[in-house]
């Protein structure tokens, strides 16, 4: 029995010298080309989030911000009731001043009139005085505020027109309520029947300040945010998850180990590194390998300036100079002691 297990284990293990990197590249790259041609389309809002090849490229390029960040907020208590979840969702939803008020600028008098929509704030359960306080807090030294009911008048002292417009825009985006950057929260059920909130935008740091939000299960599709918040190991897992799910949605079956290897390669250095000129390929130790990839002249000249040395340990270099590649059958060496007289 144990012998069989041992034998199976040996069979499963990858052979020493197997070119796992290139196999990964092939295994992800080939279905990737298929994906360009037949991207499945989904109905509704979900479509706005990049899926398929564009999303994969986004992950692999290690973009600072995804095109459309999305958070999945799980709650500490597993509510059976949708209403309570909706309440929380409402709390989270970011409300800006422009959502509840109308602006009109008077460039001659250098004034800004803000008309707050009473019905709107009543619906959102926002306090009128609270808003006014928030507006006041934002005012600079040269601006005075007059208010009467739902009307707020901001009087500036000879502010240049451009500054006035700038200030209006600043006021429009004044944060009133909810979590910064979170919009359009939708309450849905996951495959286990649990209620959760899916929202656009990504701001886990502020979200975790809410008591109801479960920080151990809530997640985002913004890998860089995960990296900044949880560290590199989490980022690696996020890469794996994101790639795996996007490919699964496209019905592209790539073995998860390939994705793991790619994620490992992207994160071994302790930070998330993109695949390409500025990332993985651009950081190869070998001058020749880098020069063979992109920006040949740049690498050669820099190597000359710095007096770099190429140990010829990689695959590309050895193909270039015509040596056996240190991979597969080329990895093993027969050493023989030469008897010298």
């Amino acid at each position, binding site marked *: 029995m144990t012998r069989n297990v041992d034998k199976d284990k040996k069979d499963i293990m990858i052979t020493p010298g197997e070119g796992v990197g*290139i196999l990964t590249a092939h295994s992800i790259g080939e279905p990737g080309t298929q994906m360009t041609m037949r991207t499945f389309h989904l109905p509704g809002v979900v479509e706005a989030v990049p899926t398929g090849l564009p999303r994969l490229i986004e992950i692999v390029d290690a973009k600072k911000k995804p095109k459309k960040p999305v958070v999945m907020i799980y709650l500490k208590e597993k509510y059976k009731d949708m209403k309570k979840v909706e309440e929380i969702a409402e709390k989270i939803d970011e409300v800006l001043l422009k959502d509840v008020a109308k602006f009109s600028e008077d460039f001659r008098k250098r004034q800004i009139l803000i008309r707050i929509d009473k019905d709107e704030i009543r619906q959102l359960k926002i306090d009128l005085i609270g808003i006014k306080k928030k507006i006041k807090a934002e005012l600079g030294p040269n601006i005075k505020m007059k208010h009467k009911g739902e009307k707020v008048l901001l009087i500036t002292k000879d502010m240049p027109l451009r500054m006035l417009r700038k200030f209006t825009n600043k006021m429009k985006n004044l944060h009133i309520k909810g979590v910064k950057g979170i919009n359009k929260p939708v309450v849905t059920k996951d495959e286990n029947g649990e209620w959760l909130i899916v929202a656009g935008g990504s701001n886990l740091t502020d979200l975790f300040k809410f008591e109801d939000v479960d920080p151990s299960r809530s997640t985002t599709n913004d890998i860089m945010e995960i990296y900044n918040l949880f560290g590199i190991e989490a980022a690696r897992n996020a890469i794996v998850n994101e790639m795996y799910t996007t490919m699964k949605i496209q019905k592209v079956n790539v073995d998860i180990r390939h994705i793991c290897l790619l994620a490992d390669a992207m994160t071994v250095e302790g930070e998330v590194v993109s695949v390409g000129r500025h990332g993985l390929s651009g950081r190869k130790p070998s001058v020749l390998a880098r020069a063979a990839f992109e920006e040949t002249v740049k690498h050669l000249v820099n190597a000359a300036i710095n007096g770099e040395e190429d140990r010829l340990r990689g695959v590309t270099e050895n193909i270039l100079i015509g040596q056996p590649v240190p991979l597969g*059958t080329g990895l093993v060496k027969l050493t023989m002691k030469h008897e010298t007289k």
Partner: protein
Amino acid sequence: MAKKTDEFIVYLNGKIVGTHPNGEELVRDIIKKRRSGEIHHEVNVEFYPKVKEIYINTDGGRSRRPLVIVENGRSKLTPEIKAKIRNNEIEWKDLIRNGIVEYLDPGEEDTLSYIAIREEDITEEHTHLELDSVGILSFVTSQLPMQEYNSSPRTTMACSMTKQALGLYASNYALRYDTKAYVMFYPQMPIIYTRPQKILGTEKRIGGNNLVVAVMSYRGFNMEDGVVVNKSAVDRGLLRVEMFKTYSTEERRYPGGQKDKFEIPAPTVNGYRGETAYKYLNEDGLISPGVEVGGKDVLIGKTSPPRFLEEVSAFGIAEEKKKEASITLKAEEKGIVDSVLLTQSPSGNKMVKVRIRETKIPENGDKVASRHGQKGVIGLLVPQESMPFTKDGIVPDLIINPHAIPSRMTVGHLLETLLGKVACMDGKRIDGTTFTPANAEDAKEVLKRYGFEPNGYEVLYDGVTGERIEAEIFIGIVYYQRLQHLVSNKMHARSRGPVQLLTHQPTEGRSREGGLRFGEMERDCIIGYGATMLLKERLMDESDRTVQIICNDCGSFAYYDYLKNKPICPICDSTNFSQVEMSYAFKLLVDEIKSLGIFPRMITSNKTEE
């Protein structure tokens, strides 16, 4: 530019000549006067009411086509006039003069006409009627029969392939010296013809044979657009083509009064090819017609004066060292010298043209196509006795695969098969012009009369076993063309051969006897397998392997001095060298980097002590 007037701007041949308050009236008048003969019949109008512009064109270079004039929903080509034409009472000129037919240019066609395709289709709004409904098709498309039964992509393909068909391209081919030309041995007029073929004269410059075509499988040799061809038919000249190729050169004059010369080069000439290369040449340096040549045989012996004066020998007296400049047959070609023409070039020099001919018999890999976008490659040549046959002893010339039909929807091909059979039995060619309905019902009647199944099916017997083939086979006559892609002009393989001077890598392309590229993706696959030594063999040993001597002290390339019998480092006085195996491409790279002012050093170590 803002318009200052509400009037119509009138252009004559692209230049503004004035304005007119009522554009419709002007256009109407011009057309009316043109039809009555008051204005020349080559004048055409373009009318753009939205931008209030009228273009009147009278200049040359517009492609125009004749159409029957329709007025008030009635064609001007009335039955009475038709009868007059039939009795030769009036001719074409009269039709134009009397305003029955007029020529439209593209501009007028686009802006002022509504053309009915058939006489039955005419409504009140129509202004013109096609002389014939095929008129809407192009020159090439109108050559193809029954295209209204085919899917449009196939029609497109059929058009482009018809242009590649080999046939009788010119009847004076024997007097011509085209660089490359093909002439078919027994070209046939298509049994299913089109009227435009007759009008345009392409009927007499055709390329193809009417073949007996069966739609069935033949032992897998016609899978995936392969076709099986009757070898005996090929031996009788089916689709056989002669290829003509002309090589030419002239005695050029150079500044300084020097001149090329046609002659058998003397062995002292620079670049002498050896005695055997010149064996077919006569004293004047030219080859004789009828000689069988091949390989790199010289066709025209020619010598040129030396390019530089310095080449004059060192012994003082100018002994001219001439350069070999003969014209040879290309390495992969062979043939018979068809004719030799000695004439004068436009610049007044002596010029020779040598025409080589070679018979191209249909063989495995040659391309054939019907006129319905159904192309195929010959997959097998079967002797007649092994081909299937009908009860009458009819043996197909060509067998196509039934899978070629459904997804491509080339019903025209099937219809041609059926009608071709009818035409053969009736002894009459059938008009297959597109948009002229072919009567399949009549065809069925004819087939019945001659004792065939009306649907074109026949019982076939296997030529090998003699057994009856269980399925009934659709068999008939289709016009097939031989296309310009002949394997004998393309086939290529290499084991060893020439390498490029710069990189020491094998040359590229058939004409240079080149290798087949082992590309980047192929390389990736071999890496994926981890087959390192195979990879090294492909990319190094079989390509540009070189052994370089490297100075262990300074890391630069050394060379071997055969006079001193020892390796020399060009930089230091080292005596310590290593022999290193590398790709020549790498050596070249290092040399080029050196030329940039960077000195890459190679650090050597012993392989066994690593």
